[in-house]
């Protein structure tokens, strides 16, 4: 039963999905190592939900393939895989208790004690019909069902959408707890702060393609901004753009910002030789990295990093 350590829990190989003329996902390759929390970031329409659907066999890839633990997806895998879709898919006419019963009968790993703890954690009424729940409660119910089967692989599409801040934190705690217990978690979220806390690895998608992937801490260490101010208009830094570590260069009057890969020391020193008034190396948090990556330009460097830390 023990998997080879190197076998990724999920690996997506050149996945392409077209809906008619629309290219929803284009040649996406990703691999999610076992036991990690993997955050998928992207603006609306970036292709995250389509990626999840193709992963789980809910939609057929136009090209490419997905494998779990090195094998294609088959129904028995769902015994230990839980999926919480972005839009609640549960039956409105069923009560909380009936939904739990449905889960109990479908999954041999279902744990009633755990399910009841989770119902209490999210303050859900077992006797109430799902249709009478608020949007947030419906999401919480779907999460209860997902976590009640002690899944080894969790796929969560916007799991905290519509939840209040306290319950959002519960969701993060659950994700972190399952992962610490060995589960692999893939989740998407618009709340970059959540991904930044919980995820060990992230992938940033934009317009159907992968723009950046890697370890969060590594990306933070590797992506810096060198900011310099000059007494007069900033000099042309065209010489710098040839440097392999330099990505986007932004100039605004006396200020110049250079997005670099690596710690930025060398670029800072080079700019220092041009007699600036000041030079600073700025850290980038995940939000900065995300915005730079999906921004109109500057993704060349990002893609480069993706290549370097991909697999």
């Amino acid at each position, binding site marked *: 039963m023990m998997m080879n350590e190197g076998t990724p829990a999920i690996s997506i190989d050149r996945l392409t999905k077209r809906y008619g003329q629309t290219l929803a996902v284009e040649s996406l390759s990703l691999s999610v190592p076992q036991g990690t929390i993997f955050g998928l970031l992207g603006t609306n329409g970036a292709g995250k939900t389509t990626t999840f*659907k193709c992963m*789980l066999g*809910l939609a057929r890839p136009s090209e490419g393939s997905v494998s779990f633990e090195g094998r294609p997806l088959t*129904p028995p895998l769902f015994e230990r895989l839980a999926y919480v879709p972005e839009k609640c*898919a*549960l039956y409105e006419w069923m009560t909380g208790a009936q939904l739990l019963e*449905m889960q109990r009968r*479908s999954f041999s790993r279902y744990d009633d004690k755990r399910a009841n703890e989770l119902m209490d954690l999210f303050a859900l009424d077992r006797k109430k019909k799902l249709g009478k729940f608020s949007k947030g409660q419906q999401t919480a119910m779907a999460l209860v069902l997902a976590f009640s089967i002690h899944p080894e692989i969790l796929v969560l599409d916007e799991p905290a959408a519509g939840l209040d801040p306290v319950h959002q934190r519960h969701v993060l705690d659950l994700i972190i707890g399952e992962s610490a217990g060995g589960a692999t978690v893939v989740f998407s979220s618009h709340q970059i702060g959540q991904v930044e806390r919980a995820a060990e690895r992230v992938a940033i998608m934009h317009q159907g393609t992968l723009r950046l992937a890697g370890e969060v801490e590594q990306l933070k260490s590797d992506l810096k901004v060198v900011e310099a101010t000059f007494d007069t208009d900033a000099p042309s830094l065209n010489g710098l753009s040839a440097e392999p570590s330099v990505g986007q260069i932004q100039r605004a009057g006396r200020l110049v910002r250079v997005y670099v890969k690596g710690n930025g020391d060398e670029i800072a020193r080079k700019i220092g030789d041009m007699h600036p008034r000041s030079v600073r190396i700025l850290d980038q948090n995940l939000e900065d990295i995300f915005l730079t990556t999906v921004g109109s330009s500057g993704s060349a460097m990002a893609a480069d990093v993706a290549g370097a830390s991909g697999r």
Partner: protein
Amino acid sequence: MRYTQTLRMLNGLKWLAIVFAAFYALVVIIAASNGFLGHIPHGDKKFEIPLPALFALAAFVTCIFCSSYGRTLSSENEDHLPVVWTRPKSRLQTTLTIVGVDSLGMLAAFAMYLLLTAVFITTFQVWHYVTVPSDALAQFGRYIVQPFAFYALVMALTASTGCAGRGLVGWFWVGAIFLGILAASPFIPNPWHAIFNYVNFLNPLAYGSYHTTSGTETINVMGGPTPTYVAGLAPVMDAAALLILFAAGLTLGLIQWRRLEA
């Protein structure tokens, strides 16, 4: 999905029971207020209720009832596919489970209608009108399969739709009834009449007509005065044709369901 489908099926039966009970109460109240209760006149010896006629009505009512069962795959497509398709069961297994549960529901609905009839007959004390012709068993075979064929064709028609399936079921009814009328109508010139007759082979409702003559009286149920081409077949042949429709409907439904994307 057996649990969910069973809940859904029982819920349907609950509503059917409520409708039947309300109908019974209404009829009894109206009859009682006109002084009919238990006083149906005995004079006309030729009046009779052949048992297969009751089966035919039961089958028709069950067809109405299973219009909603037949749309189960389609109603799962109203946003529930991510739940249905992420269980450790293949789509084939899921479909077979649904069909199995619904089958029990259809048999129960059929039985409930017969029970309602029995209660009416008892209430109005008319058991002595009920006759059992020699082909009653074969007729029963045909009528018990009819709702299954109807169910499967509704499934075939709606399996790849979402809420649009609701409208389709309505149109299916309109189409089936209209086709039956066209096929039975003596005013249609012949090339067309023959075409309608052949197409009517696919119409599960067409297999429901029952007609018999006893003495000078002709009894027609679900068919109109002119028997359809199809109903002219022996009941066993009808049952076989209905079974083929059932199998074909399920297969078509399943093929669509397996190709469907959430």
